C-alpha cells in the first residue's frame, strides 16, 4: 500500500469528466486512464501509442497503438476508441484540451490512427496527445451528459490502476493494481490518497502513516537527515503584482519600471518566503525554465533610478511622499490573506513589505484585504490600482505564455498595446522547430520586460518528501499539460517488466 497525503482531499471523481480542473484532480484520473503519449524525466514516451510520425505536408500525426491492451472491464482497446475520443470532445469539451485543433481522425486499422490538424500547432504532442485521456467508446458512446455521469463504469480506463473507492466527504481515494496492464507491471498492490493538514506530514511520514506529501521548506533538512528524500520542484508558479495599466500614471510604461526598481524582490524572497523562492525577473519565465532567456530591462533594486524616473515625470517630493498638482502619489494595493491559497501565494506579509519599500521611494500605498474570489473579481473588472496575485502553468508548453500576457482571464496581464508582441505570440505557437521557437520566446520575454504590464515578484519553491518506497520524480515540463507534481504514474509502474 502506498499512501499519499493531501491537504484538500477531494479533487473530484477520478474520471476524465469528473475530476476538478486542477493538477491534483488530473493526477488522480491519470492512474486510471491512459493517453496516447506520456512524459518522463527526459521527455515524451509511448503510452497507448507505441510510436508516432508527423506528416508536415498534411499537418497530421500518425499513431501506431499498443497491441493487446484492454479496458478494465475486459473489452479490447482499439483505434476506434481514439477516434471516438477526439470526436466526443468536440461535443463535450474536456477542460484541459482544445479539441478544435483536431480537424478529423482517420482509423487506418485496429492499431493505427491518424489525427489531421486544423492549423499549425506546436504544443500538439504535449498538450493534446500527451494530455487527452482516451475514453472507452463502448461506455461513453451513449452518454450525453458526461459531467453528471457518476456510475462506477465511468471509472473504466486502460490505466495501471483501477479505482476501488472514491470518498468525496473524507477526501480519500483507493486504487488497486490492474493485473492485466500491458505496458508494465504496477509496483503497488494498492495506492491511496488521504486528507491531512500539511503541518502534520512530517510526523505522519516518521510514523509511516504516509509515504509521500508536499512539505514546507523549513523541515526539508531535518527530513533528509532522517533518511527521507526531499525533492525541490521546478518553478512553475509566479507571484505577481498586477498593475492596472489602463489607469492614470500606471498606464505610463516608465512609471511601471520605477515601481519595479523601487521593490526589492530579493528581500521579498529572503524575508517573506524565508528563502524558499526564486526572485522574479521581468521576462515572466523563471531562470530554471527551459524557454527562459535573459532580458535587458530587468529593473534591479535601485531607489535612485526610481526617484529619477518619478521626478522626470513631474513629481515633487513633499515630506515623505511625491506629489503632482497637489495630488499625492498614492495607490491602493489589493491582496487576500495568504492562509487559504497556494503555498507561496503573496498575502499580507508581502503586501506590508512592499508598502514599506514603496514608502521609502516616496510612493504611498494603502492596503486592502479581500477574500480570494472577491480579489479575482476586482482584478477582472479593472477595479484596482495594484494587486497581489499569481498563477501556475509556467512549466508546461510555452503556448501558455500567450494566455498569461494577452489572455482574457484575470490572471493574465491582458496587455494588447504592443503590436509586435502580439505577432510574436501568434508565431511561437505555430513554430515546431525547437531552436526557432526558443528565439521567438526570447524576443517575447524581451518585449514583455520592456512593457512591464505586470511585475513578476518571485517563484516559490515547493518541496515533496517521500520514504523512497517509490521512485518519485518531477516530469520534464510537467505531467500532461504541465502539472508540477512529482506524482507521475510511471513512478508506480515497473516499465522494464
Amino acid at each position: 500500500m502506498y499512501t499519499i497525503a493531501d491537504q484538500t482531499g477531494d479533487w473530484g471523481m477520478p474520471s476524465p469528466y469528473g475530476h476538478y480542473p486542477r493538477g491534483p484532480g488530473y493526477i488522480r484520473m491519470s492512474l486510471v486512464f491512459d493517453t496516447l503519449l506520456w512524459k518522463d524525466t527526459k521527455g515524451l514516451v509511448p503510452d497507448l501509442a507505441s510510436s508516432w510520425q508527423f506528416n508536415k505536408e498534411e499537418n497530421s500525426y500518425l499513431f501506431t497503438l499498443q497491441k493487446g491492451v484492454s479496458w478494465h472491464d475486459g473489452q479490447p482497446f482499439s483505434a476506434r476508441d481514439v477516434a471516438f475520443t477526439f470526436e466526443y470532445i468536440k461535443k463535450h469539451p474536456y477542460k484541459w484540451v482544445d479539441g478544435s485543433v483536431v480537424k478529423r481522425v482517420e482509423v487506418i486499422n485496429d492499431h493505427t490512427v491518424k489525427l489531421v490538424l486544423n492549423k499549425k500547432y506546436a504544443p500538439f504532442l504535449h498538450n493534446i496527445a500527451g494530455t487527452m485521456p482516451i475514453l472507452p467508446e463502448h461506455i461513453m458512446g451513449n452518454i450525453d451528459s458526461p459531467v453528471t455521469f457518476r456510475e462506477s463504469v465511468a471509472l473504466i480506463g486502460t490505466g495501471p490502476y483501477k479505482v476501488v473507492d472514491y470518498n468525496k466527504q473524507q477526501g480519500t481515494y483507493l486504487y488497486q493494481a490492474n493485473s492485466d496492464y500491458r505496458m508494465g507491471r504496477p509496483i503497488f498492490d494498492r495506492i491511496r490518497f488521504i486528507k491531512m493538514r500539511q503541518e502534520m506530514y512530517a510526523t505522519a511520514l516518521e510514523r509511516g502513516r504516509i509515504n509521500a506529501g508536499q512539505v514546507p521548506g523549513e523541515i526539508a533538512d531535518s527530513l533528509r537527515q532522517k533518511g527521507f528524500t526531499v525533492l525541490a520542484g521546478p518553478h512553475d508558479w509566479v507571484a505577481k503584482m498586477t498593475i492596472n495599466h489602463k489607469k492614470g500614471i500606471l498606464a505610463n510604461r516608465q512609471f511601471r519600471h520605477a515601481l519595479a526598481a523601487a521593490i526589492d524582490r530579493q528581500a521579498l524572497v529572503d524575508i517573506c518566503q524565508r528563502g524558499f523562492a526564486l526572485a522574479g525577473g521581468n521576462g515572466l519565465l523563471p531562470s530554471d525554465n527551459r524557454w527562459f532567456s535573459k532580458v535587458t530591462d530587468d529593473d534591479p533594486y535601485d531607489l535612485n533610478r526610481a526617484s529619477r524616473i518619478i521626478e522626470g515625470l513631474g513629481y515633487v517630493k513633499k515630506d515623505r511622499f511625491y506629489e503632482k498638482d497637489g495630488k499625492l502619489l498614492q495607490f491602493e494595493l489589493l491582496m487576500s490573506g495568504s492562509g487559504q491559497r497556494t503555498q507561496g501565494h503573496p498575502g499580507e506579509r508581502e503586501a506590508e513589505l512592499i508598502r514599506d519599500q514603496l514608502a521609502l521611494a516616496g510612493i504611498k500605498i494603502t492596503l486592502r484585504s479581500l477574500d480570494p474570489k472577491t480579489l479575482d473579481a476586482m482584478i477582472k473588472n479593472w477595479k484596482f490600482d495594484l494587486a497581489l496575485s499569481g498563477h501556475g502553468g509556467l512549466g508546461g508548453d510555452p503556448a501558455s505564455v500567450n494566455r498569461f500576457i494577452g489572455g482574457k482571464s484575470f490572471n493574465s496581464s491582458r496587455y494588447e498595446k504592443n503590436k509586435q508582441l502580439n505577432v510574436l505570440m501568434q508565431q511561437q505557437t505555430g513554430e515546431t522547430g525547437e531552436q526557432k521557437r526558443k528565439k521567438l520566446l526570447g524576443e517575447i520575454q524581451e518585449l514583455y520586460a520592456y512593457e512591464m504590464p505586470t511585475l513578476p515578484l518571485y517563484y516559490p519553491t515547493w518541496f515533496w518528501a517521500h520514504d523512497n518506497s517509490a521512485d518519485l520524480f518531477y516530469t520534464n515540463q510537467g505531467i500532461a499539460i504541465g502539472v508540477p507534481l512529482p506524482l507521475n504514474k510511471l513512478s508506480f509502474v515497473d516499465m522494464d517488466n
Partner: protein
Amino acid sequence: MHDNYKTLLKNNGMGRAGIGLILLVLLPALAAPLLSPYLPGEYSGSIFAPPSGSYWLGTNDVGQDIWTRLLYGARTSLLIGGGVALLATLTALVVGGSAALCGGLYDQVVMRFVDALLVLPAVLIAILASAYLVPGISLLIILLASLIWPQAARIFRARILSLKEEGYISAARTFGASETYLMVRHILPLLGPILSAVIVQHGRRAIFMEAGLSFLGVSDPTLISWGSMLQHALRYTYLDVWKWWMLPTGLLLSMTITGLALLGFALETISDPRLLPAGNR
C-alpha cells in the same frame, strides 16, 4: 453610589483579581513603546530566532519581534473586545427588551428577524462586507457586533418575559408605571447578573471571532491583533516556534478573558444587594 461600588469592588477578592489581570494586560499595552525598543512592523531580527536577551519571545516568520507585536496586538484586541461587547450588548438589550415589553406582532416580527441573522453565516457576511466597504478597525467592530448580538437578544427577551410577571412589577404596572420606567427602574437592575455574563461573553466572542475570521482569511490581516498573530503562528506548528509564539498569545488571550469574567462576577455580586453577605448589607 459610585464610591460605594468602588469600595465594594475593592473588598471583593474576585473583583480584585479580575481588575489585576486586566490591568496586567492593559497597562503594558498602553506603555508598549516604553517596554520594547522595536516597532511592531519592524523587520528587526533574523527569521524564527528563538527567545534571547534582545528578543524576549523570539521573532516570527518575517523576523519581527513577537513580544513587541504581542504588546501592540493587545491594544487592538482590547479595543475590539470592549467596543463590540458594549455595542452588541446595548443592541441586544434594546431589541430583546422592547420585544419582551411590547409583545404581540412586534415581538414576533423582531424575533424572526433575529432568527434570520442567526442563520446567516459570519463568513458570508464578512466576505460581503469586505467587497463593498473599506476594512478597518471601526468596520470590524460594527461587523462583529452585528454578528454577535442576536443570541443575547433572545436571552434578554426570555429573562425580561419572566421578570415582567413578577408580582411587584405587575403591581407597579397597575399603579400606572410606563413600560420605559419599568424597564429602567425595576427590570434593568434585576438583569444585572445576566447582563455582566453577556458582556463578558460578548467580549470573549468578539476577540475570538476576530481571530477566527483572520484564521479563515476574511478579516483584515494587516491589523496587528492577537487573532492575526495566532493565525500566523498556527501555520508553523511543525516547528518549535509555536512554544514561544502561539502559546504566549493564547495564554494572554485566556488571561484577558479570565480577567473580564472575574470582574463580571464581582460586579454581579455588587449590583444585586440581595446576594451580598450579611456584613455588607
